[in-house]
């Protein structure tokens, strides 16, 4: 398993949850709430610092979410580098929405391809 990827992914979710509070909570404010330094928050969100479980739990609480939502599923991490292939029907559906916008077309194809390339829960279990 790519541990750096895991911590980057958790960090990105923390950042997203923090920015979603109403009003959006600053890194400074979150740091104060947790009685840790702002630099720690910066590094945790960037995946450069590995927060222990109890801190993650408190972060989740502070930004008003549940801890499981800050942690990616196994299948999500495994799919990060999978190639994209799509069937004709999917391509047609993307085309109907994207019309003349190549950027939208590319982004939709990426997302759908990434999701479909993910192994199922059973596949993950049998691999490990």
């Amino acid at each position, binding site marked *: 398993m790519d541990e750096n990827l895991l911590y980057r992914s958790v960090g990105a979710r923390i950042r997203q949850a923090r920015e979603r509070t109403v009003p959006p909570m600053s890194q400074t404010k979150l740091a104060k709430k947790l009685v840790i330094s702002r630099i720690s928050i910066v590094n945790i969100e960037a995946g450069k610092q590995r927060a222990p479980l109890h801190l993650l739990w408190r972060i989740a609480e502070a930004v008003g979410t549940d801890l499981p939502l800050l942690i990616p*599923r196994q299948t999500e991490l495994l799919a990060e580098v999978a190639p994209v292939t799509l069937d004709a029907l999917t391509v047609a559906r993307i085309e109907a929405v*994207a019309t003349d916008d190549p950027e*939208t077309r590319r982004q939709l194809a990426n*997302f*759908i391809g990434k999701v479909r390339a993910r192994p199922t829960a059973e596949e993950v279990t049998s691999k490990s």
Partner: protein
Amino acid sequence: MRYISKDAMEESTWQLLATTESARLPVPIELVADRIGLRVEAAPLGSGVSGLLVIEGDRGTIGYNEEHPYVRQRFSIAHELAHWVLHRNDPDSPDLFIDSTRYVSVYLRDEQSSTGEKKREVQANMFAAALLMPERLLRREISGPDFDSLDEEEMCAELATRFQVSHQAMSLRLATLGILLPAESE
């Protein structure tokens, strides 16, 4: 395509909130999705796309536009969740829903297939509105003392903040429920 009455829609969204222990303000829509086994992810989708639902058998993944305003993202998630709950078992339903901000042009292109699709979109919007703005919670909020001195406009704005939805979505919902009259312009 099944017809679903307005009352049935209110009831089933309320049941969903109850079983996922999410009947609170603002409705934790990502938690609802998580608890019924859906994945939810922010993604770059192009400005014309608000959200999509990818169905693979019993797995469902919702993607929403990472650049849209938060209240819009919440509605997009609720809308895709609605497709999952209402439409995934329809024999004529696709296994991929892409919801763009330009529905109309998409529909006009193919009259034949558009009827079922359009109905599904209307249902998904109704379901999403009922899920994010449950009638019971709305009426409970309105009956509180804070609303006595507010005019309709201020009331709508305050409710939109409490429920974390757009002003437009709240205004439409209040009109649908007969709580406020529809806005004159627009």
